[in-house]
């Protein structure tokens, strides 16, 4: 519709890691026109989001991707990990999580590698080195699939044996060499290993390098008919339901190229004023717009500036046809509305179609509503064998036979940029992350999520800053104290959570606080940590770098925070012990 209206390149607002992962996948697959982001312009193809065959793997190494916390498909990831742990055929798989902060995924993992922030690429290269020198890289594939020689890793990143060894990487990564070597050996000896990349590792200035190196590790372990091993690359034209015009600009690219001022801006179910750093210029761009028209089911920081709000059905009030990306299979979820709309609202697809028709584009938009458009799109892509969207809706979902986007092998050698500056003396490294309950902030308007204890800190109704035990001692901080976190860009106030698992020298803050609007449960609750982020980008991409900035902490005094179980811990005993079912003995 944006094209039909003559828009100068619709902008897709995605989480920053998605922009980086798409860029890395485009390099890995050798997609034409994507390897050089500066030259590719508005019409460049986007790489697909990576998907992973986790359920079919017996060894899962994730370098930075907290795929159980958030990621692109956390529910699918959770189901898949339960298969890995199901001990099928007498084998229980293993999850190793390499991540600076202990996420929920890292807490669940069998082994956590607390890698120093910004060194995930070094870790991935060292693992590749150890795999190569141990002769554990696999060059042939059963089933007749051709695998290129030299391997994809060599074409992209050079001879892995020439990369850093475990000993050389150990000091950089702050990970023992023996641990790196052992994980490499376990990976090489696993029957079906898979390596996940992106996530928080994509947030840093070296994020594309880290993501690319992690994803490329899969090329060292090809499987039958799968030259990228457990990594899946599904083409957008198969995963989507509607035609992709191919000119969607990433939000990072739009910000880099300059957001148009003086134009009419149509904002559809997104909130760039809250979810993008202020330094990226959305406030100025929207402030200079001729008119802002927002399609939204909730008032948020962007809609509060709107000249016109077209209210939408909420998720459970609307017909749903979703073709999620980032899976290891092509899938469509479909559902009829669960409840009648409470207010006089519309489906966003219906509004866009009506707008297009009203503006004289009826020929290009022949469907009477979104459901008809989605039904036609589904039939065109998946209609063989009598499949239909209506049947998918009855069943709840539709899964098509996998169809992969194979690598072209014609990839360009990747040359990482110079190391980023990082934090200065006396500064802590800022780690922003998406928590399971708030996400990028969109969960903050729901009281039951506000009152849900955070996975590890058990904080409720507020954001928090995770500080190490050693760091807290040096600053005389206790859990619940209010601190000012200051960067070169700005400062915020947030309560502290002193955590035994927090990495010394870092401070980790979840996204999702500091809404100016977004309903009674989110409005005015805390500060937005994106205010600490400047206009630094992830090297090789236009995505904002959300980790790696240097910050300082200053204690402001005791705070008033709600922490689940705090009262119980103070006043009562919470049982923690196991005992065998027939035992009269002590806890196991």
């Amino acid at each position, binding site marked *: 519709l944006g094209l039909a209206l003559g828009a100068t390149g619709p902008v897709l607002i995605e989480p920053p890691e998605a922009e980086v992962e798409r860029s890395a996948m485009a390099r890995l697959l050798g997609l034409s026109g994507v390897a050089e982001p500066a030259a590719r312009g508005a019409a460049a193809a986007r790489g697909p989001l990576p998907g992973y065959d986790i359920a079919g793997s017996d060894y899962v190494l994730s370098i930075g991707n907290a795929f159980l916390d958030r990621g692109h498909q956390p529910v699918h990831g959770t189901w898949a990990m*339960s298969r890995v742990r199901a001990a099928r055929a*007498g084998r229980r798989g293993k999850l190793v999580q390499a991540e600076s902060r202990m996420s929920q995924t890292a807490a669940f993992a069998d082994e956590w590698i607390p890698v120093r922030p910004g060194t995930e690429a070094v870790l991935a290269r060292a693992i590749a080195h150890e795999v190569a020198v141990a002769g554990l890289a696999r060059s042939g594939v059963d089933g007749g699939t051709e695998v290129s020689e030299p391997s994809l890793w060599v074409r992209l990143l050079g001879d892995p044996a020439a990369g850093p060894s475990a000993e050389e990487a150990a000091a950089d990564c702050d990970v023992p060499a023996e641990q790196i070597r052992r994980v490499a050996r376990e990976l090489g000896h696993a029957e079906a290993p898979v390596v996940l990349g992106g996530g928080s590792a994509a947030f840093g200035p070296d994020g594309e390098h880290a993501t690319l190196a992690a994803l490329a590790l899969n090329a060292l372990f090809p499987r039958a008919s799968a030259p990228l091993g457990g990594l899946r690359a599904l083409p957008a034209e198969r995963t989507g339901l509607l035609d992709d015009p191919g000119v969607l600009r990433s939000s990072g690219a739009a910000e880099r190229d300059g957001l148009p001022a003086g134009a009419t801006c149509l904002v559809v179910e997104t909130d760039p004023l809250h979810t993008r750093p202020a330094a990226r210029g959305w406030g100025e761009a929207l402030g200079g717009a001729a008119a802002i028209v927002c399609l939204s089911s909730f008032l948020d920081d962007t809609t509060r500036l709107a000249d016109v709000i077209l209210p939408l059905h909420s998720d459970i009030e609307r017909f749903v046809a979703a073709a999620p990306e980032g899976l290891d299979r092509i899938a469509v979820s479909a559902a009829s509305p669960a409840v009648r709309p*409470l207010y006089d609202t519309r489906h966003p697809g219906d509004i866009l179609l009506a707008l297009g028709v009203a503006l004289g584009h009826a020929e290009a938009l022949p469907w009477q509503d979104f459901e008809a458009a989605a039904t036609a799109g589904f039939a065109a892509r998946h209609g063989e064998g009598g499949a239909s969207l209506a049947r998918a809706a009855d069943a709840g979902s539709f899964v098509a036979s996998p169809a992969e986007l194979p690598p072209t092998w014609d990839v360009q050698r990747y040359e990482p940029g110079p190391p980023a500056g990082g934090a200065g003396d006396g500064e802590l490294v800022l780690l922003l992350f998406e928590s399971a309950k708030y996400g990028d902030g969109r969960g903050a308007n729901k*009281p039951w999520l506000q*009152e*849900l204890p955070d996975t590890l800190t058990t904080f409720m109704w507020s954001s928090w800053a995770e500080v190490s035990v050693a760091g807290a001692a040096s600053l005389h901080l206790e859990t619940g104290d209010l601190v000012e976190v200051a960067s070169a860009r700005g400062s915020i106030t947030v309560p502290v959570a002193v955590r035994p698992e927090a990495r010394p020298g870092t401070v980790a803050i979840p996204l999702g606080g500091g809404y100016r609007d977004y309903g009674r449960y989110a409005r005015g609750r805390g500060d937005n940590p994106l205010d600490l982020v400047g206009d630094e980008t992830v090297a090789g991409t236009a995505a904002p770098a959300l980790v790696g900035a240097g910050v300082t902490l200053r204690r402001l005094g005791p705070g008033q*925070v709600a922490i689940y179980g705090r009262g119980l811990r103070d006043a009562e005993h919470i049982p923690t*012990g*196991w005992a065998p079912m027939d*035992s009269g003995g002590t806890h196991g």
Partner: protein
Amino acid sequence: MTRWGMVVDTDRCTGCEACVVASAEENNVQTVGEEQARMGRAMHWLRIERTVAGTFPDVSVKFRPVMCQHCGEAPCEPVCPVYATYHTEQGLNAMVYSRCVGTRFCANNCPYTVRTFNWFDPDFPEPLDRQLNPDVSVRSDGIMEKCTFCVQRIHDARRTAAAEDREVEDGEIRPACASACAAEVFTFGDLDDAESRASKLAASPRARHLLGELGTQPGVVYLEDQEWNPGSDDA
């Protein structure tokens, strides 16, 4: 005789808390707000216990969902002066809210600290009132509440089976926590039916009771964590 019980596989629990939210939404458990939550008055019927051991960099974390254990010898039952909490023939530790006078003796006697005292009259600001589950009563202030194994779903399945002149099938009843769990941590069923999936899992060598040495005979069985097993055949 049916004996309802739950098997909880902690090896699969990622700590995502979808079960916590599902339990609250299914059973009309209201939120209490920041100030009251700060005073320890949040009313979750199910919690994720986090056990954090060690300090950076050698830290390990375990998650464990804990709800009412529906004890066969429940310490909460004999101390209630008004018989508000009692044991059903099918093994449930049940509550009669209208009898409860709020002595809180039951919570004091529960070794699992899973009972929640309700300090509030029902308050579901519009339009949150529209998501109330009509199969579950809302509770007034001054009473105790806790996990019921989603007894309304048990009743519904039994009514449906009776109308169709059959027995309730194994796996037909799924409490809200089990329905919401993508990792399939929870298995609900008849522990006295040797053929039920729950009873077979409860016979696993991994099976444990929480504080089993107290002799409370819980109806909840935990399957403890497994180690990485790359190839042996005895898992």
